[in-house]
């Protein structure tokens, strides 16, 4: 049983022109352990800094062009959370979050919902959910836990390695193109959004090729790091991305 609720507080985006990002309720807020009857707003969850950073990007884009339609359009998916519905909506309003709509459903309707909402990008900390979404044809990436030094800048990392499955899904290309268009509109000097490329195993040639590949998809990279086998852990914790597109499993434990 699926119900979609628009957020009246948020300015609705043009879903045909926006970059639709789906987040899960369980990651935006701390739902667990709370009494059902309480009306206190939930505490922020792991996806909170990401959403705030996306909001800043939207603000900058609108500053440059008040008619801008290429914005982040955030959909909050809540599986098996019907009883929390009112409180979820109230919490969103309490923090003034730019969430366009809420989708309440049961767990097995989840992936169907992603497609129905024409999600361009599904973000989640759970690698298996990310893999499931990818297989269903929705571009998905890992949501990273908040870094020790939080930043207002939205940091999107593409991890590329030569020894991986060849080819990348068409959906990822599409997201890359949309992100690239956003990045271009903001201008090189704007610090609201940073696109990062990380090559873990390969060397200069691999990284160079990846830079040009992403460019051919319409995405200009801001920061590039090539490790060629140097330890990935310390580098990744310094890079502190919000979003990580894993091209391989090199960085996953």
């Amino acid at each position: 049983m699926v119900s979609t609720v628009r957020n009246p507080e948020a300015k609705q985006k043009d879903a045909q022109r926006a970059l639709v990002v789906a987040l899960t309720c369980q990651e935006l807020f701390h739902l667990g352990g709370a009494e059902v009857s309480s009306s206190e707003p939930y505490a922020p969850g792991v996806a909170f800094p990401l959403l705030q950073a996306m909001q800043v990007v939207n603000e900058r884009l609108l500053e440059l062009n008040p008619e801008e339609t290429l914005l982040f359009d955030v959909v909050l998916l809540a599986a098996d959370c019907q009883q929390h519905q009112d409180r979820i909506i109230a919490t969103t309003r309490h923090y003034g979050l730019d969430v366009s709509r809420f989708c309440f459903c049961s767990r097995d309707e989840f992936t169907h919902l992603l497609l129905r909402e024409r999600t361009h990008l599904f973000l989640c900390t759970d690698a298996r959910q990310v893999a499931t979404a990818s297989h269903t044809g929705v571009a998905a990436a890992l949501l990273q836990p908040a870094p020790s030094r939080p930043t207002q800048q939205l940091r999107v990392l593409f991890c590329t390695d030569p020894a991986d499955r060849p080819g990348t899904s068409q959906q990822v290309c599409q997201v890359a193109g949309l992100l690239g268009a956003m990045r271009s509109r903001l201008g090189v000097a704007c610090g609201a959004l940073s696109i990062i490329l990380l090559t873990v195993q390969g060397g200069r040639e691999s990284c160079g090729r990846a830079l040009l590949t992403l460019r051919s998809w319409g995405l200009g990279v801001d920061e590039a790091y090539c490790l060629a086998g140097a330890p990935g852990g310390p580098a990744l914790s310094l890079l502190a991305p919000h979003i990580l597109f894993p091209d391989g499993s090199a960085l996953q434990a």
Partner: protein
Amino acid sequence: LTMSDMKPNEAPEGDENGEEKDWAAAKAFFENLKTNKPRPPKPRYAVTIAVSSRTLFNMVAERKIYEEDGMEKYVAYQVEHENEPLKPGAAFPFVKALMTVNARLRELYPDSEELFDIVLMTNNHAQVGVRLINSINHYDLTIERFCMTGGQSPIGYLKAYMTNLYLSKDSEKVTEAIEEGIAAATMFMPETEIKLSDTQLRVAFDGDAVLFSDESEIIVKQHGLDTFFEHEREFENKPLAQGPLKCFLEALGKLQRKFYAKNERMNCPIRTFLVTARSAASSGARVLKTLRSWGLEIDEALFLAGAPKGPLLEKIKPHIFFDDQMFHIEGAKELGTIAAHVPYGIGQKYHRGKLIEQPAKDK
């Protein structure tokens, strides 16, 4: 004392598994490549030299565009010209010399990871990186690791890449690196060009406030030369404290000993020089004894007793000369030596022997 003991800021405990996995995968990748390209060494065992884009290549004209016309125009210009290789910069001869040493080391020790590892460490935007990569390709430099931070500070990355020496044009970054315990120096392009050796890496170091701490220099500045001479004689047998470049000299010494072990002392492709204003008679002994107490060798120790360093360096022809005093850097540059300023110690508060007036702090 192994090579890995000289790495500043070790990787955190518990990450060894991850480190080993990353390394093994990269090693396999490189070994499977069809080319004869030498694969990069394991960072833990290598002597890692991080060079900035402006020290590796001559980017003076492009820098001007950045300063006068701003970031957008600068990046656009670089992208437009990205298939034109950049000209060599101040660190270029040094990097080529490092590659020469690596080739010799690989011949003698084909399975060793104790090599020079050259990392490009730049603040530049990754779109400019395409031109940098193309330029590296053009000169066939063995640089497989890089950081293009797009404006972020490189200091954290210097540690993540286990850097032993950082060379940059930006004295603020260099100062920050030294404060974090990483040997670093600001590079200067010489005014004329000297033909340098292409078979031997030649590195020259000033003594006080470079290899050694600035404790003796403080005495000169505050109490004058006579006090200094007396002090050095009195404390001749007390080793000086170490300076920011001591560990780099130590790393060079480790690699030199690998050649000696294979009977290559006469043909060693690394040669080190001490070029100090101290005089052999009155204050030189302490320096030599300090080096000995550290178990370090230096191939040639040259005591100038206050004479200018420029003419001597012109004869030595080092690929790089480290000094803490801008006065000596300028003297070296004028006569064609590639000089690198180490912004450390009391010497930074003086210019040509006079204390620099610090502006009064506003309330």
